Each structure stands twice: as structure tokens, then as C-alpha cells.
């Protein structure tokens, strides 16, 4: 069967990449009480280790943002300010870094965050079948979360797994390779989503 290459029409025409997508970021509510957004001693020890890797501590910002995201689930304004204060950096600089990279979540994601690769090799091998299945079944578009917060969808750019296309990445972690619609449906059923 020939995989469908049907591409959903994107709506971000003319959006310039320098437009701070972040301005919307702060509209979403925090899932945590701001007083809970703190680093404990273990975290601070890890951050000290990050700082030792580089000649100046500003460079520790990426690993520290990762640490904050893994701990708090996503990077709220409070988390970003916490990282900045911990590293003695201006808040705006840290926000600038966080907003540049797609894997730093500036909005809360679903409990299960599925990033389906639809770039060329996955496209040729049926990546859109899986992407469009999620769009149609759950009414999600790129970057959206379901109302119950269980699932979020992302159209990923090349995940570097072209030999085992199509591929999806789950929660910024492991890959599901050589995907088929059946396999993916079984996975969602297993997670209690479908």
C-alpha cells in the first residue's frame, strides 16, 4: 500500500522566526504553586557540576534548563526565573535560550507527549498516516494538548532515525521505530488513551 503523503496545510505563513513565540507562553496557568518551584540541595550540587564543565557559568544554562524541565515538567516563567537566579543571569537571557529550542517546553504538555516525525524519509514511509490519525481522532493540531491533559501532539522535524521510518518520540525520551498505524493504536490502547 502506498503511504499517503497528504500534508496538512500549515497556517504559520509569514511568521517570522524572531517573533517571540514566548509572549503567549505566560498565558497558560502554572500547574505548580510558584513556591514549589525551587531547587533542592541535590539539584544545586548537580548545577555546580554543570558549572565545572565550562570556563564560565553562563554555559551551564542549557543543562540547568534541562534539569528544571525534568523536575517541573515544563518551563514556566517561574522555572525560567529560578534558573536565571541560580546562575546569576538576567531573566531575559535565560528566556531567550529557552525560547530558541523546541525541546524546552514553554507550555505544559500532555501526560503523553507524542512527537511524530513527518520529515522527508518518514513522509515517504507513512509518517503522515500516524500524524493525521492523531489529528483526526483527538482533534489535535501541532503543539496542542487534549482537554483532559492526557495527550499532546507535535509534528517533529527529522529525529535522525530515517532507516527505521516512520518514527515517533515519546516524552522527549525513547523512540518508537518502524511504526505502523496498528502498532501505534495498540500503544495508545495500552496507555489507556484510545
Amino acid at each position, binding site marked *: 500500500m*502506498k503511504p499517503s*503523503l497528504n*500534508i496538512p*496545510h*500549515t497556517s*504559520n*505563513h*509569514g*511568521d*517570522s*522566526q*524572531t517573533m517571540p513565540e514566548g509572549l503567549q507562553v505566560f498565558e497558560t496557568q502554572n500547574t505548580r504553586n510558584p513556591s514549589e518551584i525551587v531547587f533542592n540541595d541535590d539539584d544545586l550540587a548537580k548545577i555546580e557540576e554543570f558549572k565545572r*564543565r*565550562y*570556563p*564560565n557559568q*553562563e*554555559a*551551564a*544554562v*542549557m*543543562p540547568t*534548563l*534541562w534539569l528544571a524541565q525534568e523536575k517541573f515538567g515544563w518551563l514556566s516563567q517561574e522555572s525560567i526565573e529560578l534558573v536565571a537566579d541560580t546562575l546569576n543571569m538576567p531573566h531575559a*537571557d535565560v528566556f*531567550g*535560550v529557552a525560547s*530558541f*529550542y*523546541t*525541546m*524546552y517546553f514553554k507550555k505544559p504538555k500532555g501526560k503523553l507527549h507524542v512527537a511524530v516525525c*513527518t*520529515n*522527508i*524519509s518518514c*513522509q*515517504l*514511509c507513512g509518517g503522515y498516516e500516524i500524524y493525521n490519525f492523531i489529528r483526526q481522532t483527538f482533534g489535535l493540531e501541532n503543539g496542542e494538548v487534549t482537554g483532559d491533559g492526557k495527550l499532546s501532539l507535535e509534528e*517533529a*522535524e*527529522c*529525529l*535522525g*532515525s*530515517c*532507516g*527505521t*521510518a516512520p518514527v515517533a*518520540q515519546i516524552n*522527549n*525520551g*525513547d*523512540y518508537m521505530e518502524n511504526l505502523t498505524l496498528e502498532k501505534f493504536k495498540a500503544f495508545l490502547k495500552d496507555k489507556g488513551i484510545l
Partner: protein
Amino acid sequence: MQTGFETYKPMILNGTPDLHQIEVYEAEGGYEDLKKALQIPRSELVESVKKSGLRGRGGAGFSTGMKWSFIGKDKPRYLIVNGDESEPGSFKDRQIFEFNPHLLIEGCLITAYALEIKTCYIYIRGEYAKWIRIVEDALADSRKKGLVGKTLPGSDFSVEIYVHKGAGAYICGEESALMNSIEGKRAYPRLKPPFPAVVGLWGKPTIINNVETITNIPLIVRLGAENYAKIGAPDHPGPMLYGLSGHINKPGIYELPSGMLISDLIYKIGGGIPDGKKLKAVIPGGSSMPILRADMIDGVTMNAESLKKAGTSIGTAGMIIMDEDTDIVEAVARLTHFYHHESCGQCTPCREGTGWIEMIYQKFLRDEAEPRDIDLLLSICKQMEMRTICALADGAAWPVRFSIERFREEYEKHCKKPESPGWNYKMRAVSGV
């Protein structure tokens, strides 16, 4: 030029089970090349890498030895191993992280010794969470064995290696953007010159090599520059990790001598195209490289010279294969979305151009384009190529330019039919896109 690939024995991905464990790696003669290299004077090592003819495997194909010899006198110096690997169609570095991380570490140690570098960063894209774990485990093992971070056996030299985890940005594969990313800034490419070898990370001399390039360094020490240079094509020697993806029966990464015939890779190695379909197009080295029509690959081999003659380039040797039923416009449209998404926004021609190109492609996908839109695309390409700080704009323009040049009839198929209303654009004062 075709070397006996049937008898070639892989050296980087040699298939030994559990090679990522340091005990297995050492039993296979691992870290012996490092010991050998430490006995060789530094200048001789650089000279032999130059003589080996090794060319960077990350896309640009620049001579590695030459790059090394440009390193500035200032200290400290830094080594960066570029494992950002985000070019669609490329997935070779991942195999090295997974199956032979110690060869990479050994290559880092030899390179650092040769260039008097005490700190090395391996930059791995954030999506490769699993492979970052493997490399970090391998580094920890190597540290326990007294190699990484310790005085190297038989010398007074020590090298520290760190993994820096990216966070999802294609532009970080560009070497100067990568440096900004390590420094904790937004990953905007820097103007060149000055080149990183002179003014790099934190303003210090920095050598940036691809993961695959670095794994070739121990092989050069092992075989000697002369023997290494005999592998594969003389202008582009050495083992090469070819990627096959898209419409192919046996996709994957294959280690073979450089200079393989594209047709051999597709039909003998990759097992041909599924369902016995015919070939329509090949992109030979990752999505930015010019696309080839099926009738253009006769006798073309995977080395710089031959591909240049055929009107394309080797890139990362990650081949994307498309069968006869592929709609080239749909495929390239997906790439235009990718480049628009990944443009860092620093230079106007790229930031705006990639957006306009994507928008026009959407028109083709709705079959609403007009014939003049094809030329409009070409004119946007012309305003992007060579007009920006880094090569992303060229990478974004080439798939468009060359797919139009080589598959124009496909674009015409997506244009409005003459009988449909509004086709006669000459009757309109302004035709918005």
C-alpha cells in the same frame, strides 16, 4: 574507481556484539591506537591526517588535516565533536554512539593529544536521549580505566571530555551556532572569518569535527596514512557510512569504502525498491543536497568529484530514495516547511525567504499555483543563496531550485488548469500569493 566492496571488512561498525562495553572494546584491540599515537610526535600526527586525505564527513567535505593545521597558537584550545545530526536523511552518528562509542572517545583523545587540547565537548542533539546515556556510560567507563580525565599512559597529558546535550534546533549543526549553543546563548551562527580554528569557543582556537570524522582518526593511526588513503575513491578516501532511507527494501547505515556506485548502493546493498517499482529520484547526501533524477545516476559514485560532475554533492552520504509514484512537489514541500521552521531568523533573506517559499508550496499542494509561481520560487532562491551568514539559506534553496530544474513537469502538473477561473493572471492588476 569501484573497489571490491564485497570483500570490505567494516572497521567502524564491525558488528561485534556489545562493543559499547569497554571490556569487549579492549579485547578487540581498543585503545591500542591511542597508545600508539601517544608515541608519535604531534606534528607528525597532524601531517599523517593531512596525508591520509580524510575529508570531513559532516557535509562540507573539507580536508580534516588542513583544518587541524589552521589551529591558532592561543591556549586553552577546545575540541568539539559535532553530533547534532539533524539533516533529514542522516542517521549515521547515532549508530556510532550506539555501537562503537569507545572508538569515538579514542578518536577524541588522539585528536586532543595531537592538537594539545585539554577540553573536548561532544555535542549531541537533545532528541538522542538514549544515545546520550550510552556515550555518558562509555565516558564513565573510560574514566574508570584512567583514560578520560586522567594522565594518559606514557605521557604527561590529560584530556577531559564532556557531553553537551542540545535541545532541538537544526541550526546547531552549523559549527558556529553550535559554539554559541555550548556557551549558553541562542544558537545564532557567527560571521566567518574569523574561523573557529582561530577564534572559536569563548574566543579560543577550536576544532570542530563531525562524529564520523573523529572515528576515522584511530583508523589512520592503525593503518598508516598511505594504507588509509588506498581505501575507496582517491579524492575522498576512507570508509564511509552510507545511509539508505525512503523507498528502499533494506534501509539502514552501511559501512563501505567511499566511491560506491549509487546504483550498487540502491540495488545490491539496499535490495532495490519495494514492490519492484522504478526509481524516480535520489537525494544523495541529506535533504539540502541537490536532487538527482533516476536517469542521472548512471556511473555516478559517492565521492566528491563524481557527484560534483553529476551536479550534486555528497553532504552526509545519507541517501533518500524515491520511487516512481512519489510526488516530488509534496516531498519538497515538506522540506520547505522544515527549513522555515529551522531558520534561526538572524538574516532577513533566510527568515523571510523560507517563509515565502513554504507559502508558495502550499499553493502548489492545493493545485492553485500559476505557472509563473515556478519562476517566482526560482527568483526567491536567487535572493537567498550566498546572501546569509550561514549555509542554511543555501540548504533551503537548493531542494527547491534543483527539483524545479530537474522535475519542472511535476510542478506544472500542480498548476491550475487553464480552464479554471482565475488562471489568466494577466487580467489581474495584483495577484496575491
